[in-house]
């Protein structure tokens, strides 16, 4: 009874068991809303799962692998590039450059496709460039903010321990913010999946789940569209979980002071 009240009260910590019940209940509710929705254009669960089965036979699995590797490649490159740029903001010379790069997140992909096409030698490269650009401009913004908000006392602590300035950067900025870097990565890696469909639509030579989705959408096969979206969501959740797990393994201290740890 107390837990039931806690679920509806502000700032209450509830047990893991209750959270599981809560998630299960809400998913069930969502499923029922979907099942009994009067909207004509919303395909029913049975139709979606049927479409999923058909597409699986048609090679959805293979397309997923193609997209997954492309996304993984893009995330890895974006992470490397963004972290490097964000860490470089410790040097005043790079701050305006990084600030400018972070402003590029306002630009539309459509206007940039031509320039990336000129730079890329293959369709794969073009997709990779587009994805890396799209993710990095957000990733670098988040991570540069993390670096800028490190309190002065952390730097002072390192200096009082006789560390040179590069060692201070390693200890305070790189190691000290590793948990936050994982968090920024987790948030921005999701962006990869969001952009993937658009990017795979631009260059369809390799196929991929995005190209498949655009084809189904073009022919107004809504059940198939929903089935692909559902598959992307499951993969995205798995990716989110994996990054969260890595954060827990490498940064076990990260959530120690949180109320909802």
């Amino acid at each position, binding site marked *: 009874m107390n837990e039931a009240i806690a679920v509806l009260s502000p700032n209450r910590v509830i047990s893991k068991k209750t959270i599981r019940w809560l998630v299960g209940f809400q998913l069930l509710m969502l499923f029922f809303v979907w099942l009994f929705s009067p909207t004509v254009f919303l395909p029913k669960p049975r139709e979606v799962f049927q479409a999923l089965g058909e597409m699986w036979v048609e090679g959805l699995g293979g397309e997923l692998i193609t997209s997954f590797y492309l996304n993984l490649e893009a995330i890895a490159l974006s992470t490397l590039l963004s972290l490097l740029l964000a860490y470089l903001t410790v040097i005043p010379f790079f701050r305006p450059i990084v600030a400018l790069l972070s402003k590029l997140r306002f630009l539309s992909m459509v206007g940039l496709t031509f320039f990336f096409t000129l730079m890329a030698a293959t369709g794969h490269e073009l997709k990779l460039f587009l994805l890396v650009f799209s993710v990095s401009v957000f990733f670098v913004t988040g991570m540069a903010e993390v670096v800028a908000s490190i309190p002065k*006392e*952390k730097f*002072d*602590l390192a*200096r*009082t*321990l*006789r*560390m040179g300035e590069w060692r201070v950067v390693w*200890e305070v900025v790189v*190691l*000290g913010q*590793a*948990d936050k870097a994982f968090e920024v990565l987790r948030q921005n890696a999701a962006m990869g999946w969001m952009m993937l469909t658009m990017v795979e639509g631009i260059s369809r030579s390799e196929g991929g789940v995005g190209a498949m989705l655009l084809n189904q959408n073009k022919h107004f096969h809504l059940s198939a569209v929903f089935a692909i979206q559902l598959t992307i969501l499951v993969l995205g959740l798995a990716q989110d979980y994996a990054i969260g797990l890595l954060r827990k393994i490498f*940064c*076990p*201290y990260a959530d*120690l*002071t949180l109320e909802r740890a």
Partner: protein
Amino acid sequence: MAASYTYGKTLLKVEDVSLEYDGRPILKRVSAEIKDIIRSDRVQGQVVGFLGPSGIGKTQLFRIIAGLNKPTSGRVTINGEDRPVQAGEVGVVAQNYPLFEHRTVISNLLLAAKQKEKDDKVAHDKVVQYLNDFDLIDKARLFPAQLSGGQRQRCAIIQQILCSDHFLLMDEPFSGLDLLMLEKTSELIQKVANMDELNTIIVVTHDVTAAAAVADHLWLMGRDHDAGGKPLPGSHIVETYDLIERDLCWHPQIITQPRFIEFVREVKERFRSL
């Protein structure tokens, strides 16, 4: 009766330190000196209480003594060396006891020990010794976020002792403590000071009673006033109290004695006039 003692070499010297910020004087020709107190019968470290009203520039001087900031003119020297102090030579224990949150207690301490001691085995043994001395050995594998306030304070102190050259600056160590914790902190400061003849602790605080109870000297920082009583810009150490000379230190129950209470009243009175 005052214990017999003599003064040895100068350990820390603040020489005519001035600091301006945007052309506005913050510190004006601050001078002070800490000498080694020698007692024949025991190891005696030095504890200086550094008092002053809020906004007087204590933190600025604190940072200059720690080598974290450079003064506009003047310098701070340690151990008689003819060069300004460098960051790391004077340990700093800040008010909220910062530690590297991504490292465990032992990792925080080993990091500090290895900065000074090149032999890993010696550094490790030293850290274990301190962990035992300060009752932290069972907390060695915990992260700072898992420590209590007192444990965190001790860990921060050990970290700085391991790395500095006998000097420790403590910023408001008595702030927000209950009576029991205040006594424990005072004992801890004296324990650390008396671990080595050259150990020197400067305690920056607003708490006159706690500072007087733990220190052998008090520095009082303030500003001069013009004829109209208006404070002039730029503060300096306006008063230095030698508590050994007054026979007010190294007595276990000194804080209960009328002459101590009278002394605290005198300092507080002077404090109010700053």
